[in-house]
């Protein structure tokens, strides 16, 4: 679904991605995790075309994305809590995206599912972080895209909405979609991940199922297993 071949990216003198290779498969929730500044955001932004890699190739459904923009119609993207034009309403924002993407969006069902009906005509500046996040979720899910990217999707959401979104992510995966997710919430990773892609210093340090990671570290919880990996890496560097 998404093939990433040997991509490099430098910001000034800082090398963020150092020859990264990755295949993101359909029908799986691929969780991208790693410590701060490990290249998670740069990787996601490279897939979306927001960041242009210095070297290497990315293919989305077999199509090279370099200087290409149409491929993005196959991707639904839910960014982190963001500030959008404050004087627009959610309805206008949703209309704008459907204006750009055309096709037949399934907005009504998602709006009702997230309980956004009462906020559609309020200006974005008056909405809480969680409500804005619901608007983001609507923008990502209103089209039936084969690839879904969620960047810290549950931050700011209330428990009910969080559960709904997690259920939805599972449903989308079961429909055979490629789900790419970044999050820092360990319980979410444990619940959702089919595969964990652990980035460290610009390369893939580990690519495994959560079960295998726990097993290899001899820990019952994923959080402890990950902490153990990080610590062993640190002592490795110190030594």
């Amino acid at each position: 679904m998404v093939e990433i071949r040997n991509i490099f990216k430098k910001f000034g003198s800082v090398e963020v991605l150092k020859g990264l290779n990755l295949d993101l498969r359909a029908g799986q929730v691929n969780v991208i995790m790693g410590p701060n500044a490990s290249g998670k955001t740069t990787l996601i932004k490279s897939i979306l075309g927001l960041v242009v890699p210095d070297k290497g190739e990315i293919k989305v459904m077999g199509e090279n994305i370099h200087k290409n923009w149409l491929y993005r119609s196959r991707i639904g993207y839910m960014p982190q809590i963001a500030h959008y034009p404050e004087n627009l309403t959610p309805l206008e924002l949703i209309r704008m995206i459907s204006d750009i993407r055309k096709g037949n969006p399934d907005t009504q069902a998602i709006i009702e599912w997230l309980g956004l009906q009462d906020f559609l005509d309020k200006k974005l500046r008056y909405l809480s972080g969680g409500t804005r996040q619901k608007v983001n979720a609507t923008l990502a899910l209103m089209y039936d895209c084969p690839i879904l990217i969620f960047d810290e999707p549950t931050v700011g959401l209330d428990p009910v909405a969080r559960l709904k979104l997690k259920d939805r992510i599972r449903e989308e995966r079961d429909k055979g979609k490629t789900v790419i997710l970044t999050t820092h919430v360990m319980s979410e990773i444990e619940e959702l991940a089919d595969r964990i892609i652990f980035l460290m210093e610009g390369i893939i340090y580990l690519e495994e199922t959560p079960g295998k990671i726990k097993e290899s570290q001899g820990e019952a919880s994923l959080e402890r297993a990950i902490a153990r990996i990080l610590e062993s890496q640190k002592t490795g560097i110190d030594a």
Partner: protein
Amino acid sequence: MLKILKYSFKDIFRSKWLLIYFGFFFVSTWFLLYFTNDPSKGLVSLLNIILMLIPLMAIVFSTIYFYNAREFTELLLAQPIRRHAIFTGQYLGLSLSMAGSFFLGSGIPFLFFGVQNSDSSGSLINMLLMGVLLSFVFSALAFAISIYNENRIKGFGLAILVWLVMAIVYDGIFIYLMVRFSDYPLEKPAIALSLLNPIDLARINILLQLDISALMGYTGAIFNKFFGTAMGMAVSVIAMLFWTLIPLFLYLRKAGRKDF
């Protein structure tokens, strides 16, 4: 691009500052006309407001707008749409709303004071067009500065500096050079120097049209002598178009390959 333009318009038109900007021009033009009671005198008084404030406001608002729209730009970049369409749409959305606010804000009071029945209507239209052009020039400069500077404090500082140099410091440098090299023939260098400042170009254009030699200053007089009135005005307009297109080109070129 038109879609982006449409929604930028919607957003900007609802914000208070655009209304304040419109209101400022409306009230100040109204007062100038009320006190002078003569559209042609009102025009001359409006001249300095246009030459100083439009560049300042255009450069400040455009810089703020560009940096504030950053996260929204990222959302748009993740959609199936060409990069250039997004960035051109945002530039046009802002510069057209600012130019429109000024045009209506200053133009409507003149209609109330009967400019259409006086012989100043041509001058008014010319002056309004210069204000519109200045809005385009300084918005383009602001967008170009902002996209090359990731750090918004630095970008904002640089934008203000550009305004300061063109609106104020430039005159000082100009006079210094003229005095320092007064033994040499200076006509051509002086013309070249005025082409380097869009504010001066707008001033020369308006004064050539109003035909007020006392206010033209050195560059205005040279322009008049060298090109004649009509040609001088045409040259200044063309130079200002370049002042819009070159920063716009640099901005779009950077936008095409920038990482967000």
